[in-house]
């Protein structure tokens, strides 16, 4: 295998055999003597950049700005949630019903102006209930009551026995 590889560049080696053979690339004098020192100073520079006052204060400054932004965002988030939270209309209705005496006409007008849809809902809700009740309960007739019930009722109303025969 080694022979095979050396055959690959045999022609090239023959060509370069005619050259002077001296090193073609040079370095400045004593270049390698000071190389390690330069590497060490580069290593120190790269490690001490955080220790430099300007860099340190820059990092602290950036950290503070980020902290302020984070706090501002975290504080604003619950407010937004509260603002955007919807109060159920049933709770509002209950509140208005319980405190109807404390509300003056201006409050009521304002409430109406701000939330007409809610009022409409209330009206619609009531209308439906009434209609359902009307539909579900058939009209009352005299046949629904027994004679005893009618007798007791008449006595309660102040009639005396026999008075209602002439009615």
């Amino acid at each position, binding site marked *: 295998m080694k022979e095979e*590889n050396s055959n*690959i560049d045999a022609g090239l080696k023959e060509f370069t055999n005619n*050259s002077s053979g001296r090193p*073609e*690339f040079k370095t*400045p004098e004593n270049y390698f003597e000071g190389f*390690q020192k330069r590497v060490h100073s*580069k290593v120190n520079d790269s490690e001490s950049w955080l220790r430099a006052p300007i860099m340190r204060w820059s990092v602290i400054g950036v950290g503070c700005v980020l902290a302020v932004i984070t706090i501002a965002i975290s504080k604003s988030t619950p407010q937004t949630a509260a603002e955007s939270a919807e109060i159920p209309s049933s709770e509002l209705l209950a509140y208005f019903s319980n405190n109807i005496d404390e509300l003056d006409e201006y409050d009521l007008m304002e409430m109406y102006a701000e939330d007409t849809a809610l009022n409409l809902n209330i009206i619609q809700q009531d209308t439906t209930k009434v209609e359902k009740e009307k539909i579900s309960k058939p009209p009352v007739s005299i046949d629904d009551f027994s004679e005893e019930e009618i007798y007791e009722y008449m006595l309660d109303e102040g009639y005396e026995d026999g008075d209602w025969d002439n009615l």
Partner: protein
Amino acid sequence: MYCRIIKGTNFIFKIDHLQFTDQDIIDKINQPETVNYGFNLLMDKYQEKVYWVIRRMVIEHDAADDIAQETFVKVWKNIRSFKGDSKLYTWIYRIATNEALNYLRKKKKRFFLPIADVEHELTTSLESDTYYTGDEIQLKLQKAILTLPEKQRLVFNMKYFEELKFSEIAEVMQVSVGSLKAQYHHAVKKIEKFLKAD
């Protein structure tokens, strides 16, 4: 024997990096009291190899110097996480070659250069480089090499000049040995064709 004196701030010590294997160097880096010594040993052993791999890719000395330094800064930052899954030198070579390829890509993007123009620019900087002293044959070969695509050029340089084994190059570039052999073969054919035509 290769010996150097390294001057620290308060002390002077001698390093003979040939005494130390890669594992010795890693062990020293992993101990807090010898971490700097270990890193100096590592640089002593690999700084020249790393520099030349990079230099042959980017041609200019200043760029090669920057990239070589950056390579060792990255080695320093990541050496503690080096698990030893690959050999130390192939790991360092991988960082170096990636840095060199990134530099060339950035250069292309920065100046909106097509590949042919990068190759032309590298050839121009080779001819005008005061640190290039190659003769006519060497210059001809370098111009031929600069016509290759970047990765093929990298394979060719590591095999032809650095004399790394295909298995080692495969570990550096994380490709199969078979594909590397094919790339090297194509590279050599292209260079020969260029030299015959020139």
